[in-house]
């Protein structure tokens, strides 16, 4: 178990290193020379040499990487060309929004998908199952940019339960923050509910065909107990794998919802930065998102060891 975790941790470090190199090279792949932009009219050979020396750009590239990495590890990823805001600040204020949106949407998705699947998988192709399956098919067909305006129209404009837009940091006012997050969270959750429900339902139906379920019945266990304590866990393997990919896609993939609800999350910031060619912001966000993705997969791998004992022992 421990050796498995350590192995995964080592892999995580290697992948993080590769990501950092690629992200670092991102800026070097850009066309143009920063010195000519900075020098403008004073672009002489001598001035350029001085500037290259000042910026450290005359040293070998691995040395530049090293300097950049040390700064990055201290949280210094440079600053925006346009607003002079530090990249660190953009991330620190935007990342929690993404994380919060993802947590809300995923908690809701699992809270809906798991019980519904546990109920309907017991009697597949009966009315209840058909309703749930058709319903989730509909959810799957509705993209967030369609659901978000509908939610706003009903719950913000119509019922005035939630604000249509706006964001207050959690540290300022947790209650308002959560209240504001509910609609965007729900807008993101629909697709996840549909995917998780359908996957878990079909895996449960397959598991219920297994010999060990007949065996459990022959012991006299009730259907409910068999569902919860025998069938559920072995049916969650692909759910877990897909949840990992799905949540990964939501990292900085929440742009549309953040845009619609005017929330300055990372998804929103990175699209804005790309449009304005604010490369250091793009670089910083790409680094954070990539690392977050790797950490997420590490957590998923760890959860695999929890649900399936064969992963670490075989």
């Amino acid at each position: 178990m421990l050796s498995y975790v350590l192995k995964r941790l080592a892999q995580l470090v290697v992948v993080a290193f590769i990501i950092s190199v690629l992200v670092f090279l991102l800026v070097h792949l850009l066309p143009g020379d920063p010195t000519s932009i900075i020098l403008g009219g004073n672009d002489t050979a001598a001035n350029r040499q001085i500037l290259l020396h000042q910026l450290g750009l005359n040293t070998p590239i691995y040395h530049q990487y090293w300097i950049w990495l040390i700064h990055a590890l201290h949280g210094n990823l440079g600053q925006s060309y346009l607003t002079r805001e530090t990249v660190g600040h953009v991330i620190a204020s935007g990342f929690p929004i993404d994380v919060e949106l993802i947590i809300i949407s995923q908690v809701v998705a699992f809270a809906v998908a798991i019980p519904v699947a546990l109920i309907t998988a017991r009697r597949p192709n009966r009315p209840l199952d058909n309703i749930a399956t058709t319903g989730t098919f509909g959810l799957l067909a509705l993209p967030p940019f369609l659901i978000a305006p509908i939610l706003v129209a009903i719950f913000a404009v119509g019922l005035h339960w939630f604000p249509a837009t706006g964001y207050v940091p959690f540290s300022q006012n947790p209650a308002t923050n959560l209240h504001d997050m509910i609609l965007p969270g729900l807008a993101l959750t629909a697709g996840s509910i549909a995917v998780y429900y359908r996957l878990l339902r079909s895996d449960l139906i397959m598991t219920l065909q297994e010999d060990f379920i007949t065996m459990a019945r022959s012991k006299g266990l009730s259907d409910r107990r068999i569902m919860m304590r025998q069938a559920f866990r072995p049916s969650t393997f692909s759910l877990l794998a897909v949840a990992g990919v799905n949540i990964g896609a939501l990292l900085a993939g929440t742009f549309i919802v953040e845009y619609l609800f005017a929330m300055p999350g990372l998804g929103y910031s990175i699209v804005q930065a790309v449009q304005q060619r604010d490369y250091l912001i793009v670089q910083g966000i790409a680094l954070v998102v990539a690392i977050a993705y790797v950490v997420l997969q590490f957590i998923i791998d760890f959860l695999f060891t929890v649900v399936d004992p064969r992963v670490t022992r075989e």
Partner: protein
Amino acid sequence: MSARRAGRPADRTLEFPDVTDLADPLLVVNDLHTSFRTGRGTVHAVDGVSLTVGRGKTLGIVGESGSGKTVLARSIMGLLPTRDVIRSGTVLFAGHEMTTMAPAQLRQVWGAQMSMIFQDPMTALNPVVRIGRQITDSLRLHLRLDRREAHTTAVELLRSVGIPSPEERARWYPFQLSGGMRQRVMIAIALACAPRLVLADEPTTGLDVSVQAQILDLLEAMQSERHMAVVLVTHDLGVVAKRADEIAVMYAGRIVERAPTRTLFAHTHMPYTRALMDSIPRLANPSGTRLQAIAGRPPDLIHPPKGCRFAPRCPYAQDKCRESDPPLRTAASSDHVFACWFPLVDRMPADGSAKSSASAVDYEAPSS
């Protein structure tokens, strides 16, 4: 007698008083039919089976793959799904009619009074549940033991089925055990609540030959220790030859011959039974003796052939066999029944003894 207590479906808890009269049979199956509705038509997997199992006795059910043995065992227990399955007939178990029981009542019987050992220990144990819990599940449910007592009992059970260091093994998962060990665990699960009847469905088929005899011996030892009845379902007549009190031979969903083991071997009536006997390797035969295979395949159970179902494969079949279905008749001794128009004993009397003199003693489990 417990039989008098049947017919009270309103009872929430079933009673299983200890019975001292051993003549009172534990299980009486009468004219059991089980069919499956499929896209191609209705499969008559079990087609009018009647049998009786005495308390503490062993009944062997023998037949080829597809003869309906497994479906029969599961129908007796009532374990088959209700959808697209049609079942008729009666199953009287310790005085209780199983076929009309409510699910909640069946669950009082399952695991507690009647349990099943499955064929494949690789797939019949839950891969993500520790062995200990797979045993304690039914102990806690039926015997109302608390967590600690159940664990202690489970460890004792594992010890009794020959699992070394059972305290440690109870925390293991099935994939950490060998096939033979898993089948021992399965026996421990089936026997946990000391049931009166164990249905063992091909309990050794998935195992190495060297382990088969060990498992059968274990089952036999547990049986005599606990005085439980066993229905041993197998395709291998050799497996039941020395272990069963009575043998029922199944073909195409029906019992074609049933007799006490010794009688069956000494006075085989049905050519199919003879064919099964000839397909077992025997130590007495000189090496190099070819085993007799049964030509052809079991019939289609959607459209079974007219007449005797074995007729298309029977070397002795005559026109009458292909025309009309032989009923189950009683042989010389009243406990021997068979379904054949031209039983082997009529065809070759005393002098045909070279073939029919085979006795149960000649047949050994494959490993011995």
